[in-house]
């Protein structure tokens, strides 16, 4: 009676070791070694978006003579600034398991409001304030509709706002582009550092990129340094646990949508400055680029995971891809298909990372026995 029982136990143990070492030598050191390999590959994969960007830059430099120049780098940075700013707001929303489809329309509306204030009152401060306030209020309404209106998913209120804000922008502007923007806004959106005396070597650097860096620095500070940021990650990681731990989840949610709206306002200033005008359709479909940037940047749609630097990298990937394909004279329609391919590639990388994480966890469990 005892012998069969003993044999069974032995078989189970052998199987456990085989799983633990993934077919390697069943020694005590093997799990630790493969743990290190997995942890290392996890670190590499966390560089995912940067890897994609570097690869793109290297390949395009080889294919095009003009791609790798300060002038062109300045162009790419200037072109990506709007998407960068929108992506920063979108990141905050996606961190809480949400989505903000309204940022493109919000950009158009905020720009139109700002341009009307500038046209009628000629006050730069009032125009800037009106633009930012419009963006922020629209975002806050999104948040309130979602949280207080108990709508089932942020897709609904922000989709409704996409349509509504777009309609309001067309109504207020009589479907016309409103010409003119405050000079300071023009500098922000279109300026280069060249106008500063002695800026010679960095004269190609767009002012809009400085705006992006400044806004990004603030977002890093509030997400990593403040209690609020910790709450954003907590709400995304486990909303129910956040409630149980006394985190004011409704306020956190409303605040991320308000900030996403504020970012749409900032992006509206850059857009208005770049074209010295505000069109009621200037932000159309910009929300898709912003969402794509965040996803390419490796943020999880399941919430709680994503980094500012990676979201910006994602926005740059999209801009570099478009710029490079343009320089190579490739049909613009291919650009959209290429962007689609990069989104899938980036998320596949993320899925792979998830598998590796699972392996690390199971090895930890074995090590803990």
């Amino acid at each position, binding site marked *: 009676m005892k012998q069969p029982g003993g044999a069974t136990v032995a078989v189970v143990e052998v199987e456990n070791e085989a799983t633990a070492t993934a077919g390697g030598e069943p020694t005590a050191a093997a799990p630790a070694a493969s743990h290190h390999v997995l942890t290392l590959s996890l670190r590499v994969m966390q560089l995912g978006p940067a890897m994609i960007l570097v690869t793109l830059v290297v390949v395009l430099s080889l294919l095009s003579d003009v791609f790798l120049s300060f002038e062109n780098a300045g162009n790419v940075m200037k072109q990506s600034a709007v998407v960068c700013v929108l992506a920063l707001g979108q990141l905050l929303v996606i961190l809480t398991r949400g989505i903000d489809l309204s940022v493109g329309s919000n950009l158009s509306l905020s720009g139109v409001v700002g341009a009307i204030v500038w046209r009628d009152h000629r006050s730069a401060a009032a125009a800037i304030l009106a633009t930012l306030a419009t963006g922020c209020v629209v975002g806050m309404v999104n948040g309130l509709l979602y949280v207080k209106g108990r709508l089932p998913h942020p897709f609904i209120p922000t989709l409704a706002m996409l349509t509504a804000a777009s309609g309001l922008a067309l109504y207020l502007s009589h479907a016309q582009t409103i010409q003119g923007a405050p000079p300071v806004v023009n500098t922000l959106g279109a300026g280069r550092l060249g106008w500063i005396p002695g800026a010679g070597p960095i004269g190609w650097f767009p002012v809009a990129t400085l705006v992006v860096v400044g806004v990004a620095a603030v977002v890093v500070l509030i997400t990593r340094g403040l*209690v609020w940021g910790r709450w954003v990650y907590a709400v995304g990681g486990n909303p129910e646990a956040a409630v149980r731990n006394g985190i004011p989840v409704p306020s956190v949610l409303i605040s991320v949508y308000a900030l996403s709206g504020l970012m749409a306002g900032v992006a509206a200033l850059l857009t208005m400055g770049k074209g010295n005008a505000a069109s009621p359709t200037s932000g159309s479909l910009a929300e898709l680029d912003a969402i794509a940037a965040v996803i390419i940047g490796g943020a999880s749609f399941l919430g709680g995971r994503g980094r500012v630097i990676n979201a910006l990298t994602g926005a740059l990937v999209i801009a570099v891809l478009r710029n490079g394909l343009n320089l190579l004279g490739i049909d613009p329609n291919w650009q959209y298909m290429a962007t689609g391919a990069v989104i899938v590639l980036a998320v596949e990388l993320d899925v792979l990372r998830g598998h590796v*994480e699972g392996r690390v966890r199971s090895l*930890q469990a074995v090590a803990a026995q």
Partner: protein
Amino acid sequence: MSGSDPTSRPVLEVRDARKRFGAVTALDGVSLVVEGGEVLALLGDNGAGKSTLIKAISGVHHLDSGTVTLDGVDLTGANAMTVRANGIETVYQDLALFDNLDPAANFYAGRELAGPAWLPPPLRFLRHGQMAQRTRELLDRLQVSLPDLDAPVALMSGGQRQAVAVARAVAFSTRVVILDEPTAALGLRESGRVIELVRRLKDDGVAVILISHSMDQVQAVADRALVLRRGRAVGEAVPTAENHELLVSWIVGASAGAAG
């Protein structure tokens, strides 16, 4: 703190708790008392009302009627934050951990160490170093070893995650710890460690409410066992080997009393 000896009188008292969810009666007049340094096991089949009861105590649910008092202070209807501030900690069955955050962030979720005090709480600056330091000290004291304190808890094993959840409760509770099936997802050895933590709480004079389906564990660590069935308290006994049958009959409702 009243200054009286916490082990000398009831710490937590629930009286005649009633709660309905629509047509379903989850709690139908349950009362219980737990003293400091005592482990009360809460037994019952699925749907007996155990979870509703502990959620009512921890401020997640609000009772339709009945009272919850801690050292004579009325906590009926208090929210989760207030209950925690009064020294009642709960470890939920599903752990309620933040997988994406590291152990220190999990420990301090919702009560982050931050300053300066004149700023509104969400706008205060996190004291990362202080939180990491205290977390490390506490885990050392509880003899919980984790491979990497900077890694998100998603990368940890079931036992390590459970240890983080229990240690979090231990760290902040001054009066009562409620454990909802703390070993349900664990292997034998890891379960043993969690039970060891429960003993340490008891020795520290903390009142413990333990929900468990393992009679062995209940016998090993609990001083009393209260059985719930269909929202009612149907019996209470000291969980010994001799009382095992009796407790099981109360749980499944096969006792003579049920027929009458």
